[in-house]
Structures are given as structure tokens and as C-alpha cells.
């Protein structure tokens, strides 16, 4: 049983693929096209996520220190902020430094205005948080600390930015989920039709005394191969297209479009597409056989 059975299954798999090559090719085509779509979309989505995260990470907050704060208060405030769990980096900027920056920005406008004598600008701590979203909450918290005059982080603008990136990411996820569901539906439907075409063959096998598993194996292997090929080819295509895109972005010096590295993207993609293809191939052929095996 074992040897002839095993050889039979392998042989049948390839014979079956050959005999129904037209159907298998177009069905693999459906798997490919669907997974290619899903793959391309995942790449776009991963990068959109990445870019929005990058943008958000540039959000900082400035904690202005009261003009009359003494050295002790200042130091205590500095260590309070620096040791805060959610703070990543703190930098002290004196009022002189602030004025220097302003002079640079405004160019000649402040000429003749002696700022060293009467500097109206406040000293501050510039704070980066661990998570951009923490900024809003931390700002509220820091405002209550002794010696703090005000906290700025681009109120209004930053909330909007967070909202936009949230919406973009949710829409991206929703589209992705929809696309994945679609892929699952399309592929399993195609494989179902492919198996249905061979319904007569399957029932005949049953009448000759074949066990369900004996019939299933070649179909499973076929589904596996179809799923595998249908997943690997899109990966290759995505790999090619993405490499070109990355190169194009580099050549055109679109530095503000910060694409994820090729390897990261391909690793992520393979993680989803190959199991999806193979799993669907196997499950698709297995479940769609069910009805014909009950004779």
C-alpha cells in the first residue's frame, strides 16, 4: 500500500495538473492575480504606515520655563521631565539660544535691537516623547509642574495630524482586511469550481472503494502547488517592482518619501502571502471535495 500509494499520489498530482492544465493554469492565475493585488496593496500600506509614523515622530514639545524660576526649581524640573517614563529625550535651550535662533530666522529684521539687554524670550526644555501620541497628555501634565510657564507642541495642528494619520491607517487596514477577505473568497471559489469540474471523477473513485484520504491527497497536493506557485510568483513580481521603486526614489532624491527597505517589506509579505496561498490551496480543494466524497 504505502509505496504504490505514495508513488500513486505523486504521480496523480502531476498527471492531474497536466490533464486539467488549462483549468489549473487559469486557477493559479486567479490566485496569482489576487495575491499580487494583495501584495502590492500591502506594500503601499506598509509604507503609508511607515511614512505617517515618521511624520508623527517629528512631533516635539517645548516646555517654557517661568522667567523668575530659580536654579533649584529649574534643575528639579529638568530631572522630573528627564526621568518621566514616557520621555525619550530632553534638551535645555536657554533664552539666549532662543534669541539666536530667532535672529537667524528673521534675518535683518532684528538688527539694531539689543536683545542681550532685554531678552523677552523664555528658556525652555525641548522634549521628545517615546510615543508621539503621548505629547498631548504629557503637555497637560507638565503644565502643572512648578516653574513651568507654558507648554507648546503645535496645539491644534498636532491633534489634526494624529487624527489624519489615524484615519489613513484605519482606512488602510480596512481596505487590507477587505482585500484579504476578497482574496480568500476568490481563491476558494475558483478552486471549488476547479474541483467541481472533476466531481464525476471523484464519485467514481469512491465507488471503486477508494478511501476519502486516498482521493483527497492528490487534490491537496494540487491545491498546495497551485497556492504555492500562486504566492511565489506575485512575491517575485512585487520584489522586482519594489526594488525599482526604491531605486527610483533614491535617484530622484525624493528624500521626504521615506520607503521601507526592500528586505523588511519582502519578509513581511512572505510571512503572509505564502501561508495564505498554500493554506487556501489546500483548504479550498479539501472543502470543495467534501460534498462529492459523501457517496
Amino acid at each position: 500500500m504505502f509505496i504504490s500509494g505514495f508513488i500513486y499520489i505523486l504521480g496523480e498530482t502531476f498527471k492531474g495538473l497536466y490533464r486539467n492544465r488549462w483549468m489549473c493554469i487559469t486557477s493559479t492565475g486567479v490566485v496569482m492575480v489576487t495575491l499580487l493585488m494583495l501584495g502590492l496593496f500591502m506594500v503601499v500600506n506598509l509604507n503609508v504606515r511607515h511614512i505617517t509614523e515618521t511624520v508623527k515622530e517629528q512631533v516635539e514639545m517645548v516646555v517654557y520655563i517661568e522667567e523668575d524660576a530659580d536654579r533649584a526649581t529649574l534643575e528639579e524640573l529638568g530631572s522630573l521631565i528627564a526621568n518621566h517614563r514616557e520621555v525619550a529625550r530632553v534638551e535645555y535651550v536657554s533664552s539666549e539660544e532662543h534669541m539666536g535662533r530667532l535672529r537667524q530666522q528673521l534675518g535683518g529684521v532684528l538688527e539694531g535691537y539689543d536683545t542681550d539687554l532685554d531678552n523677552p524670550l523664555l528658556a525652555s526644555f525641548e522634549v521628545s516623547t517615546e510615543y508621539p501620541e503621548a505629547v498631548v497628555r504629557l503637555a497637560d501634565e507638565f503644565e502643572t509642574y512648578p516653574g513651568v510657564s507654558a507648554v507648546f507642541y503645535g496645539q491644534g495642528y498636532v491633534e489634526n495630524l494624529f487624527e489624519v494619520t489615524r484615519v489613513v491607517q484605519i482606512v488602510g487596514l480596512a481596505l487590507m482586511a477587505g482585500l484579504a477577505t476578497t482574496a480568500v473568497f476568490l481563491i476558494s471559489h475558483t478552486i471549488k469550481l476547479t474541483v467541481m469540474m472533476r466531481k464525476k471523477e471523484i464519485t467514481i473513485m469512491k465507488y471503486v472503494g477508494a478511501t476519502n484520504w486516498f482521493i483527497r491527497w492528490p487534490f491537496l497536493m494540487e491545491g498546495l502547488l497551485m497556492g504555492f506557485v500562486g504566492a511565489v510568483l506575485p512575491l517575485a513580481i512585487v520584489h522586482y517592482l519594489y526594488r525599482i521603486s526604491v531605486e527610483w526614489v533614491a535617484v530622484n532624491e525624493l528624500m521626504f518619501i521615506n520607503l521601507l527597505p526592500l528586505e523588511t517589506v519582502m519578509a513581511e509579505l512572505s510571512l503572509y502571502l505564502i501561508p495564505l496561498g498554500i493554506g487556501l490551496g489546500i483548504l479550498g480543494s479539501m472543502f470543495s471535495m467534501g460534498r462529492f466524497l459523501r457517496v
Partner: protein
Amino acid sequence: MVEAKNLCMKYGKGKQMALDDVNFFIDRGEFVFFVGSSGAGKSTLLKLIIRELKPSKGALKVFNRDVSRLPRHRLPYLRRNIGMVFQDFRLMEERTVYDNVAFAMIVIGSSRREIRRRVPHVLNLVGLQDKAKAKITDLSGGEQQRAGLARAIANRPAMIIADEPTGNLDPGTALDIMNLLRSINLRGTTVLVATHNREIVDHFKKRVLYLENGKLVGDEQKGIYTNVH
């Protein structure tokens, strides 16, 4: 070998009984003809034996087991002991004659050597040695029928069931085929044949079960076809 007790069969929700209170006992090694006009219930009875159908009422024992109680996963093992020739052939149409016969042997786990030896032999017995590599769809009606028979006998089953095995054969070939079944029967295999072939039934003088509108109306040793008509 096969025992029917008050066996009834009704398809779907129709009122008509395809089999109506049928009782008989067929012993190991018997050779039995089922006869009866078109629609009498012969195929239904044979389909019940291989559990293609489940009886609506009554009991049907095959190999001393009640087939209506047989769990689904045991079905393949029941069917491996029965070689069946179907009225509509039921061959895998896209495959060759050789593959169709070989498949039945692979299923029971025959070795590759055994298969390579046995398949040409049985194809020779039914006169299809030249058609081994032909696809089923490329065969004539009679050739398909003989391919079905070759598949049925390939595994030397304990019982052979043939539904109208000579309907597409000329009298000469039909007689050859029935002689083949008789010689197999002589080696101990139970043979059940549903047929309309009066010449054959009359010539072989075996046990005949007469069906009429789903009822068993006669059961004769050394019967002849014309008994009912």
C-alpha cells in the same frame, strides 16, 4: 452473502416504491440473474448492495453485515470486496483504459509489479488488449462496457455485480463475457447480473430473480427469461 429482509426503497418524496418488500437470500458462490422490465428496480437493488443508496425500510445484509448500518468510513472496504459493472459504466473518462483498471488495484494497495502484470491480463480477458492506452471517451459503447468489466474483475473480488453488462455487446462478445463471468464464478466468486438478454439467461440456466414494479415476483433455480413474459 446477500440477504434482503422486507427490503423497501422509495426515491425522494414520490409515492411509488422502486423496491417493495423484497426478500431473498443469495449464498456464497451463487450465480444469479436479476430480470424484469425496464424500471422494475434491478439497478436500485444492486445500488443498495454497494450502499450507493440506503434502503428506506427493511434490512439488507452483505457479507453478513447490515449495509444500512455501515458507518461511512467502512464503505470503501465493503466496495473493495465487490466488483461492480455499472449500467452507465462510470469510468474516469479523461483517463486511459489501463489507468481506470489500475486505479481499482492501487486503491486496495496492490504492488506496482502486481498491477503491471494483472491489468494487461484482465484487459486481454475482455478483449481490450489493443485499447489499453486509449482514453475512455475514445472507446465505442461496447468497449467501454468491457472496460468496466475489466475493472470489476481486476481485484478478484469476493462478489461481482454487473448491471446490464452486455447491453452494448454483440451476441458473440456477450457470450464470451458471460462465459468469463461463469468461469470466475466457478472459482468461487459470487456473481449477480441484472440483464435483459433473454438468450444469455436462457442459455446459462442459473438462478433467476424476477422483479416487477419493485416486487420480487419469482425466484427460480435454472430459470429462463421467458418465465414472466
